[in-house]
């Protein structure tokens, strides 16, 4: 299905998906190792008695985690969407340019160094992501522009190289650290503080809004570089801005929650099946859809084998693949 991107349609889509997000949030707050009823959830959100069970569970334990899941889900889905446009490749995901490998290397190095470094692990991860972004950008430039295939190659090669380095560092870590790291590499939303959410929220939202401002240029970029230039798009500037913002979103997400897979690849495709390829509709769909999907996945990860937790990346992959296959057979590309 392909909706024309009018202001009205965008509002309809946003309203509908926001409703879905609200429902997902309520479900996530209700379910867990302790099940709460809807009244308890609402009283937990609004309640003033800080010692009540509902308030503690909802406001202090679950809400920050749900907010984090929403932010990370939106960030990864939007990043995947614009990278698929930038690289003109429907198989691109947020990690194809090596950003997540850089973040993982930063985090693992922090753990290996221990002490104060280990405490600043998310910062080290983000630093690793940004360093990788700069490196891939310089490597992927051709005649002052980011040609999609050289960028893709630069990213893939960098990711491979960094993975090798990560494996090397892993052998130097103790066994306990290795297990924790392996879990992190598959995605872990359990380490969440209000500070993290407070820093992440404005950064992720600002980056998504920035990309939305470029949405109409992204549409034309899909026609081909030369066509876009003939239609007046400042191609080099748009490509650089998209690359930087997408890397920022991926870096922020991966620094706090590890490499949650499948989301950045799957959500854009489902979004395209539902609303078409126009980014003015697709970006809000990806953001709200990605947030809802990760919130629900994390809820499943917490409850399916409670009190144990599954890595949320495993849930997104296992739950996502059949849904994707079903939609593919029903609607077609």
């Amino acid at each position, binding site marked *: 299905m392909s909706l024309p991107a009018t202001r009205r349609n965008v509002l309809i889509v946003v309203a509908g998906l926001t409703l879905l997000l609200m429902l997902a949030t309520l479900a996530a707050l209700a379910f867990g190792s302790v099940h709460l009823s809807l009244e308890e959830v609402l009283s937990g959100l609004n309640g003033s008695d800080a010692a009540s069970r509902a308030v503690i569970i909802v406001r202090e334990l679950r809400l920050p985690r749900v907010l984090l899941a929403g932010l990370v889900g939106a960030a990864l889905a939007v990043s995947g969407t614009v990278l698929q446009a930038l690289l*003109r490749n429907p198989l691109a995901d947020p990690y194809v340019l090596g950003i997540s490998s850089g973040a993982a290397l930063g985090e693992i190095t922090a753990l290996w160094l221990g002490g104060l470094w280990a405490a600043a692990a998310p910062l080290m991860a983000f630093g690793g992501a940004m360093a990788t972004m700069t490196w891939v950008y310089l490597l992927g430039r051709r005649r002052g522009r980011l040609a999609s295939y050289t960028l893709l190659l630069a990213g893939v090669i960098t990711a491979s190289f960094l993975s090798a380095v990560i494996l090397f560092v892993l052998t130097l870590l103790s066994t306990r650290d290795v297990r924790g790291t392996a879990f992190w590499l598959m995605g872990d939303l359990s380490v969440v503080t209000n500070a993290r959410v407070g820093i992440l929220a404005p950064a992720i939202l600002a980056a998504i809004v920035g990309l939305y401002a470029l*949405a109409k240029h992204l549409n034309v970029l899909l026609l081909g570089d030369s066509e876009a230039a003939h239609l007046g798009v400042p191609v080099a500037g748009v490509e650089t801005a998209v690359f930087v913002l997408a890397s920022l979103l991926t870096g922020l997400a991966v620094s706090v929650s590890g490499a949650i897979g499948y989301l950045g690849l799957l959500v854009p495709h489902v979004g395209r099946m539902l609303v078409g*390829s126009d980014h003015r509709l697709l970006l809000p769909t990806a953001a709200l859809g990605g947030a809802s999907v990760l919130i629900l996945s994390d809820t499943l990860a917490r409850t399916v084998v409670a009190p144990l937790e599954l890595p949320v990346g495993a849930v997104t992959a296992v739950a996502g693949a059949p849904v994707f296959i079903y939609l593919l057979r029903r609607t077609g590309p």
Partner: protein
Amino acid sequence: MSIRTIRAKYATRPAPVQAACACLRVDTVVYRYPHFELGPATFEARPGELVALVGPNGSGKTTLLEVASGHLKPSQGFVSLDGDDLHRLPPATRARRVGLARQDTPLLFPFTVREFIRHGRHPHLRGRLFEASEDEEWVQWALEQASLTRLAGRRVTEISGGEFQRAVLARTLAQRPRLLLLDEPTANLDIRYQIEILALLRRLSATEGLIVVLVTHELNLAGEMADRILLLEDGRVVRQGPPEEVMRADELSRVFNTRVAVDRNPSSGRPRITWVTSAPDAAGLRRSQQG
């Protein structure tokens, strides 16, 4: 409607030449590739005129078109449209004035035909994020001009090569440019659409004051429809003028390195090229070379 009546209906007088003309002026441009040099080339094209660039493969026709579009910057000379240097204009402004329908438009994402054509309105969006009703009207107009209304909802990946070529033309028309440049616009079209598209271009050129320059391999279509023809060889313009002047058997045979004969289209009187294939009929050849 025969070609003759179409031409008679829309024939216009060329505007008088002025210092800063209301026209496209390509002035002594030179463009250098590593192994090929185009130019110096000079020509003018006026509103109401259809100018055809013809020549063998590799003679520089597409390069000249891209230089005239403002996209390729020549190492010498300049290109001006209505007095403005095209290479000095910001890309977005230029995109509102110059439309280029290229031959090798890539087909990457499955847009619908209407969405594909809507991209042509991009230069007119300026600060806006969404198209206005005026934009949608122009998209509809472009669909009608290119006879694509029936296919508006179909995906571009599901239409024929010729239909896609008309969609590319429609997208360029939706830009509402002043200068319309086309690279082989009739390459994949059947004869009905070839004539229809060229008639469309002539009509738009006359009624909307468009300046139309097209590259084509169809010498007979150029001879029939163009007001002026530029004949290129090895990067140089060897002759330019009305079809009667340019389409001469001896010169065309030399430039294209094959034997051709030129006679007249019996219904329009315009020059018409035919191949010389078997043992030549000497009398027939002599007649055509005089005609």
